[in-house]
């Protein structure tokens, strides 16, 4: 186990929120076809409110801080927030589309000691990327920004969200990442919009196309190991937990709402009304999330995939129960290994049927 994994496990065992994802705005200068956010401003946290939250998070033991959005650079105070966060010695990662990053911004990001900048790139073909972002010349601007950041010696990761419109472009984006000298990560997850509109789910690549992704060593590493049939779960597996959501990780929205994860829209409190650490320690919802072990899962505890499935409790919650299955992960487990899941077998299905999620993150504390 690496030192980093050891530290992560220690934080998990102690219940320390070692990592927080904070969206500082939902506003954006792109209008990506698959985006689930409502881009209107419903009362974002002010500069002072975010600084106050950062003070509390530092005191609570948060080390890894991700600033995301929306587009973070649309906040005029973003560099002020970044400087404040670094003064508090957070390890900072920024998620951005980068179209507002020029030489001066890249230099400032380097001076502030940001760890990583993750940038969305949808295709190596400008016309495909721009058609997804709906912002003309966004590909050109994003790639230019990546070069500025690399000139500063900064670590950049290209995040490639895979959907029907760009499903054949991931190899091209990987080549582009190699040419730019940056890391590459692929994400085939498309989630419904915040207002419950599920039309964007039509953009998901069909499950039948997933094996092509899962059998690509460039994306999954050791393909044989990755696609191996599931092993029988041990007692230790059944005593285990799904992921770090609510254990050592949480999400804060631009309105101050705290959730177990960015993909787990269970409201647990608002930092405008309560201290961050009080929400973390005493929220009944947070405590319920962290109480659930694999053996408590209604369907998955009897599934052969239980020890190796990427089951997301947030997606399961969106389907109706945080103890239930997440159909999107059932689909991945099935197409990764060819072995049916317990969720499929109980429904008599020969191939997975992705249930439409019903609940999404909404602002729960809009100031008057």
């Amino acid at each position, binding site marked *: 186990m690496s*030192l*980093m994994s050891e*530290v992560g496990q*220690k*934080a998990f065992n*102690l219940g*320390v929120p*070692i990592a927080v994802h904070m969206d500082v705005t939902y506003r954006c200068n792109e209008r990506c076809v698959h985006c689930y956010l409502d881009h209107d401003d419903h009362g974002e946290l002010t500069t002072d409110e975010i600084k106050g939250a950062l003070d509390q998070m*530092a005191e609570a*033991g*948060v*080390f890894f801080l991700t600033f995301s959005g929306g587009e973070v650079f649309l906040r005029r105070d973003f560099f002020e927030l970044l*400087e404040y966060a*670094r*003064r508090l*010695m*957070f*390890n*900072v990662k920024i998620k951005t589309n980068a179209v507002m990053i020029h030489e001066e911004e890249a230099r400032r990001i380097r*001076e*502030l*000691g*940001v*760890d990583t900048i993750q940038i969305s790139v949808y295709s190596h073909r400008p016309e495909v990327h721009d058609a997804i972002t709906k912002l003309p010349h966004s590909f050109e601007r994003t790639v230019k920004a990546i070069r500025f950041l690399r000139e500063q*010696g900064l*670590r950049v990761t290209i995040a490639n969200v895979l959907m029907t419109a760009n499903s054949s472009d991931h190899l091209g984006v990987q080549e582009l990442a190699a040419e730019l000298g940056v890391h590459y990560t692929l994400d085939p997850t498309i989630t419904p919009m915040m207002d419950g509109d599920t039309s964007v789910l039509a953009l998901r690549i069909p499950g039948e196309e997933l094996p092509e992704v899962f059998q690509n060593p460039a994306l999954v590493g050791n393909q044989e190991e990755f696609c191996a049939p599931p092993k029988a779960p041990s007692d230790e597996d059944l005593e285990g937990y799904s992921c770090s959501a609510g254990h050592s990780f949480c999400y804060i929205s631009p309105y101050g709402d705290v959730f177990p994860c960015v993909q787990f829209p269970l409201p647990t409190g608002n930092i405008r009304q309560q201290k961050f650490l009080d929400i973390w320690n005493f929220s009944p919802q947070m405590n319920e999330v962290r109480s659930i072990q694999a053996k408590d899962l209604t369907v998955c505890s009897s599934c052969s995939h239980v020890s190796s499935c990427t089951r997301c409790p947030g997606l399961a919650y969106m389907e109706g129960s945080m103890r239930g299955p997440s159909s999107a992960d059932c689909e991945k487990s099935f197409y990764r290994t060819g072995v049916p899941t317990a969720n499929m077998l109980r429904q008599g299905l020969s191939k997975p049927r992705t249930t439409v999620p019903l609940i999404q993150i909404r602002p729960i504390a809009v100031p008057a």
Partner: protein
Amino acid sequence: MPENCIYIARSTAIAARALAGEMMVMNSADSTFFTLNEVATAIFQAADGRTPLREIVRDKICEQFDVDPEQAQKDAEQFVAELSSYGILLVSDQPLPAETPR
């Protein structure tokens, strides 16, 4: 450099946080990641650029950890040299500026 004139400050490129009494430190320049034990954490936390290392060892280490002063000073210098080689600590014979990023 005389021992009593060593000043140490944390680099602006690092991230750091205490976890159960031990300090996690990461250098954003190259992603090197360390955890420091309690004694090293006490030295790291006292590295304000203004307090001489000998004073840090006397006030923060010998007093709290009941160790021999000479051995503690020797160990502290070795620790400081090591972290300095990784760009985590800055070392000087003059007081250093505060450790906040620009």
